[in-house]
């Protein structure tokens, strides 16, 4: 056995007493195997790995045993662990941008690992780096060595991280949410790369993720964790065919499926309470609200040249309808949203809202439009002012549009919306950092809806959330749409999510619309090769 973990526990010491992060974890990992550790944020999956590598925060205490290649890791001294880290055991983190030093060239940072562990330097080290970049199928590897992290795309940076992790040909590679920050298409490439690497080098992999579907793509065995405890573990195929625990079942069912569409996604709570809420009827599609004709948006780059982010995009949106916009980062989908919101100027084309052209709007016209068109952003925490109570954040639109209300009246109104998005009104006077990502996103939705707009633009509103939370937020959006007859413009990079919630789907690539189709038929009738690519990128789960 390469790695054998027995009774591993992690506790954090705090002023209010010990907090248990991981309890009695047991697993074995054989040479060349892949273990998926699946759980929501806060389930203790990352702490487990940090404990094994001696990287816990100062207040963390690990007990139990983790034997790697015959050596006990728990309680081993730092010098010993340092010899292992990056050498026999390598780590890849979630965000490839922050894990790379922006001031060092790719070649330089990669060579550092070799200097540490293999005492290679200069030309020999560079050749080794080049060989590894080729192994991770980096386009133009020789040129990359001289480049800096910001010159690479997210996917390329993650390839560099993987190449760095493999330099010393480790026996074990720990990947902590390595694809969560990436587009689905890039995620698919990285997953394929990890599979290839494993065959080529025989490396064992521990793959940490919140998404069971992603884990299923790659892993032989799965370990489902919740609140620091193992819920279920077993072979991937068995686990999917016969999940023993309702929690596992729920994690499988909360992922939107490409092949068949459910009216309403299942959530963990549904399974735990045994309820099965029915989807509310979709609102009747009414008259045309928004029409976009040949919209073009240009950005001026730092070198003074113009970059066309959106070119000739046209679409319509009716009342009560959901239009999904899907594409990779850089496809121009967010630029369309920003143009609609007046956050970016438009270069050419026209946007009409209820028959009126946005270009002709004066300040008072924009104010009226703000009341009807609202937005929910991607990063739940960043979209709330950290120095304002969430109640004040939610009530802020009222300050502009209903100045006659007193602060108390505004907060009462905010409380109503707090409850409508499923939060406790007693939490109104807390600050954003006291909430989880999913709760922050609910608060963002409450702020967007307090003016009762007709159109809600969701710009990657669920992309930063765990799949289990994503399902809850998607359900919430659908419920609110049904109750208030909202129109939704739903922007995301994951086709499965977009297809689940939308009536029609707009596929964007390089600033252009490549395909526009009814959501129901896009899977079977996709015409454009790019749409096909997006479909193939969605992780497929083994049939239950």
């Amino acid at each position, binding site marked *: 056995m390469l790695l054998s973990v027995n009774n591993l526990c992690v506790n954090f010491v705090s002023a209010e007493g010990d907090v248990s992060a991981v309890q009695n974890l047991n697993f074995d990992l054989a040479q060349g195997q892949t273990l998926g550790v699946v759980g929501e944020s806060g389930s203790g999956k990352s702490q487990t790995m940090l404990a094994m590598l001696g990287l816990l925060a100062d207040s963390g205490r690990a007990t139990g045993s983790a034997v790697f290649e015959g050596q006990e890791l728990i309680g081993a001294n730092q010098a010993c662990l340092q010899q292992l880290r990056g050498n026999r055991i390598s780590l890849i983190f979630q965000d490839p941008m922050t894990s790379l030093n922006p001031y060092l060239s790719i070649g330089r940072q990669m060579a550092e690992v070799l200097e540490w562990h293999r005492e290679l330097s200069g030309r020999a080290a560079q050749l080794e780096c080049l060989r590894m970049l080729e192994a991770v199928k980096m386009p133009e590897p020789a040129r990359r060595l001289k480049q800096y992290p910001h010159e690479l795309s997210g996917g390329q940076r993650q390839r560099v991280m993987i190449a760095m992790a493999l330099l010393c040909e480790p026996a074990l590679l720990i990947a902590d949410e390595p694809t969560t920050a990436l587009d689905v298409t890039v995620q698919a490439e990285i997953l394929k790369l990890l599979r290839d690497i494993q065959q080529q080098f025989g490396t064992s992999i521990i793959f940490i993720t919140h998404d069971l579907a992603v884990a299923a793509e790659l892993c032989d065995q799965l370990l489902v964790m919740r609140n620091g405890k193992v819920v279920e573990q077993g072979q991937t195929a068995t686990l999917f065919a016969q999940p023993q625990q309702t929690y596992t079942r729920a994690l499988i069912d909360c992922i939107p499926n490409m092949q068949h569409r459910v009216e309403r996604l299942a959530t963990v709570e549904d399974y735990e309470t045994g309820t099965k809420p029915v989807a509310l009827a979709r609102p009747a599609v009414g008259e045309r609200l928004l029409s976009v004709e040949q919209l073009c948006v240009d950005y001026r780059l730092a070198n003074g040249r113009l970059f066309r982010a959106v070119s000739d995009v046209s679409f319509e949106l009716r009342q009560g309808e959901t239009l999904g916009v899907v594409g990779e980062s850089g496809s121009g989908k967010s630029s369309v949203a920003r143009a609609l919101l007046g956050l970016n100027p438009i270069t050419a084309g026209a946007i009409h809202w209820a028959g009126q052209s946005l270009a002709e709007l004066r300040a008072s016209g*924009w104010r009226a439009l703000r009341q009807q068109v609202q937005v929910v952003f991607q990063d739940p925490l960043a979209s709330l002012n950290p120095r304002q109570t969430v109640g004040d954040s939610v009530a802020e639109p009222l300050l502009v549009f209903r100045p006659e209300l007193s602060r108390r009246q505004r907060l009462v109104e905010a409380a109503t919306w707090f409850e409508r998005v499923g939060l406790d009104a007693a939490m109104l006077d807390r600050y954003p950092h006291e909430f989880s990502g999913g709760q922050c996103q609910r608060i963002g939705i409450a702020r967007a809806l307090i003016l009762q707009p007709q159109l809600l633009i969701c710009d990657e509103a669920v992309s930063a959330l765990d799949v289990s939370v994503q399902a809850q937020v998607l359900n919430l959006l659908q419920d609110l749409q049904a109750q208030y007859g909202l129109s939704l413009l739903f922007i995301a990079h994951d086709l499965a999510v977009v297809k689940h919630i939308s009536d029609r789907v707009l596929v964007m690539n390089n600033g252009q619309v490549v395909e526009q189709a009814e959501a129901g038929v896009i899977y079977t009738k996709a015409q454009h090769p790019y749409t096909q690519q997006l479909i193939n990128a969605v992780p497929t789960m083994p049939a239950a």
Partner: protein
Amino acid sequence: MMRREVLPDAGGGRSLWADAGRRLLANRAATASAIILLLLTVAVIIGPMLLPWEYDVIDWEHIAEGPSASHWLGTDQIGRDLLVRLLEGGRISLMIGVVATLVSLVIGISWGAIAGYFGGKLDAVMMRIVDILYALPFMFFVILLMVFFGRNIFLMFVAIGAINWLDMARIVRGQTLSLKRKEFVEAAIVTGAGPFAIIRRHIVPNLLGVVAVYVTLTIPQVILAESFLSFLGLGVQEPQTSWGALVNDGAQVMETMPWLLIAPALTLAVTLFCFNFLGDGLRDALDPKEQR
């Protein structure tokens, strides 16, 4: 419906400032500093009235004597009571420190936040004005003021304040540039809030951490700048005095009459320490993420 009743209590009182006050009170060092500063302020205001000596009256029987029962901190070379002079000087120093800092705070924050938030041509013009003022030598500027308006203490406030806000404006502008790209600012734009409402509600509260630290650096700087001006004969004039001037005088006779240096220097040091602790405490208190 039960929950609705929670609201009036829960939602009514909690604001950034109320919370900051509560957190500040929980910070012992900051509270102690605030109390010391408050006592000092009261002392410099009413102290001279209660003491039997005047700051410009000479006691012919006790010239250049150390601390005694009649003169608690001793007397200077020409027999003036040091305690009363220290308190009298504190009026000038504390007033300069607080007023000049407030002036630089108000101008600096508004100038920097407006330039940073609106950007473009306005930013360019506003920041070039700052650059030009930077290029003016401080002394030249002060002398110019004195020549035009004659010597008076009020002008010193103007001179010091007018120089100090430049740093503040630059720091605030830089912070504003990064803050205005945050999603919560965009969300506020989309809710229809006007630019000045956004600056007031979203930009400035998020600047306070940096500003609080900078203010604690500015107050000592201003107090020292005053003593420098006084030394050159451009600030307060004898028999009026200030802490800076007292330290300066004391330093010249430290070998023969050390008490003339020790008392003012100690007072100045304690005051600056207190401002530092208070500033640190304020910065932490204004950050809702601090657990207290």
